[in-house]
């Protein structure tokens, strides 16, 4: 342990139990394709309109985040998970605050402009 990464292990030991076949990644990929396709179907196929459309495709975008975070980005594995989850949750919270807050605040401004 006192030795640094640089001096140790030029070879990767099989230290971690990855699945034998990358099922998680494949499921993630298929899900992301399906979600994208579904959003396009709703929008470009004119199957939904107005706020129903907006809510639906936003919801699918959010599901895509979930796919990326859990199936690709290994959000909840190994150490430091709690901090990672907090970071990303706060990130989404403040993103929401900035975007929604701006729309709310500036909608009056744009009527004037």
């Amino acid at each position, binding site marked *: 342990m006192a030795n640094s990464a*640089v001096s140790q292990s030029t070879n990767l030991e099989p230290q971690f139990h990855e699945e034998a076949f990358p099922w998680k990644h494949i499921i993630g990929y298929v899900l992301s394709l399906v979600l994208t396709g579904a959003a396009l179907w709703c929008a470009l196929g004119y199957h939904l309109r107005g706020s129903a459309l907006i809510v639906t495709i936003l919801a699918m975008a959010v599901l895509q985040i979930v796919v990326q975070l859990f199936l690709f980005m290994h959000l909840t594995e190994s150490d430091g998970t709690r901090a990672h989850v907090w970071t990303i949750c*706060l990130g989404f919270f*403040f993103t929401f605050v900035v975007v929604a807050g701006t729309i709310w605040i*500036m909608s*009056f401004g744009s009527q004037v402009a």
Partner: protein
Amino acid sequence: MKNFFVTGDPMIYASDVLIVLVLVGIIFTLTYFKKWGWLWREWLTTVDHKKIAIMYLICAILMLFRGGVDAELMRTQLAVPNNHLLSAEHYDQIFTTHGTIMILFMAMPILFAMFNAAVPLQIGARDVAFPYLNAVSFWLFFFGALLFNISFVIGGSPDAGWTSYPPLTELQFDPGPGENYYLLAVQISGFGSIATGINFMATILKMRAPGMTLMKMPLFCWSVLASCIVILFAFPALTGALLLLTLDRVVGTHFFTMLAGGNPMQFINLFWIWGHPEVYIVVLPAFGIYSEVVSTFSSKRVFGYKSMVFSLMAIAVVGYLTWVHHFFTMGAGADVNAFFAISTMCVGIPTGVKVFNWLLTMFRGRIRLNLPMLWTLGFIPNFALAGATGVMLAAAPGDYQYHNSYFLVAHFHQALIGGVVYGMLAGMYYWWPKLFGFVLDERLGKWAFWFFNIGFYVCFMPQYELGFMGMTRRMYTYPANMGWTTLNFISTIGAYLMGIGFLFIGAQIVYSIFRGQRDLTGDPWNGRTLEWSLPSPPPAYNFAQIPHVQERDEWWRIKQAGLADAYRKVNLNELEPIHMPKNSGIPFLMGVSFFVGGFGLVFGWTVVAIIGFAGVFLCLLARSLQEKTDYHIPVSEVQQTEISLGRA
């Protein structure tokens, strides 16, 4: 090239001469004493958090001086009506540079000086999580500040206020390099601030000594954590706002212009999404310092630790949700204004909790009135007033009356000086012996405190009244028949008193370098937290052995148990080689590259800009390809160091 150097003003010529003299003096001294190598090895390439703290501190004090001179010039101009010491144009430049420098190039670095000085020592770590990145942050700040500060002799200062609102700051209304300086200098140092935020968050979350759970952490570390959270989520809004305004000016886009559908209000919105949280970024660590100081100098545990932690976090999050109170008068609608008025007032609640906790900590304590405590006591009435006037401004309909008047000027100085500057000075006095190995002279320090504190009230109390009398901010002069003359004159006297206070601080530092009492114990204040268990100044690796922490005020516990002397002794046979990061010149070079790139953009010299940013890229690449970025201090060397420190 004709307008490259600013000409025509005797004050500027005097500064030119002064700058050249200082530069020549520095170069001569370094060459004469053969110190160039030393400067490079020990400082410019260092990644040691203690040295970085010292560099931040020196820069911050210099910037306080620069901003202070700006302030005194403005107050001199306003002392009497119809004054023409400064022209309108010059006054505009001065309040702009004063505000920008005080917030971004004085408050931020002095804050980071405190982070660097105390956090790793308090949590029992050998350095921050990313020491190299820490150096990058410093040099980005440094070269950002340099870029900003040369504006007044090369090309001309920005002059549209520290808030830099469009459309006034669009090219059409404000040609010339001044605004570009503002945008790029603040942007560059802003990158550094974001990196510092990331760095200290990772440090606090990951580098704590074994046994130090979050709830055993000193409150200062908690306050740094809270401040870093706000940096992380607020600073990018500034990055965005500055980027878009830069694009408007340099590329000709239409984000905030009056033409082609631009909307200047969006800049104001983005600016304050950062701007208000910025207030908490700088004040939360000051709260942390007050907590440390109050408990140390009352010789008591801090009262209500958990509620302190909770209120820090609450302020960080709720404080983010209040930004519209800076532009109630934009008229975003009654619902918007009502929401943000209420959220603003809500921040007062956790803040009040903290004030009562400090008071209760002092209650029945054995209070010692050393300098850190003096500034802390000075802070409390100051902040009570700042809070009271803040709530007045937060009442949206009331704000339509006070907005952009001298009432506001008085309010934010009360918060920024009484809250932040007092706190940072308290922190400076408190940790100075840890950083430098000697205590700052108390007698001169008391003079400084009383001049500054009395001067403060003399300067700013009249301004509340002036605000009620209708005097608006950013006025360069006023007619004699407004009835404002007496109060303005008094205010200027106060500003001079504060200036004298500052000079006393300078004198105190110089005097103490030669005569100050040396700190041989490492624990001059009878402290409670781990930094005081180390020698002053601590060795490069801080802790020869990483401590195992049992309690909140760990060092106090050890002392109470009578184990202090034993604790200070290191068992030479148990030492292990210490893993440390290597020094690196890349952060400095990266700063230089940013400077060159920024300078090129300021004047629209594409080639220079490209060279500069290519340099940045090369620095990143060079770092990525570097293999050995760390080394081990051998046991023998650690043993020697510990013996020479009298710790074996």
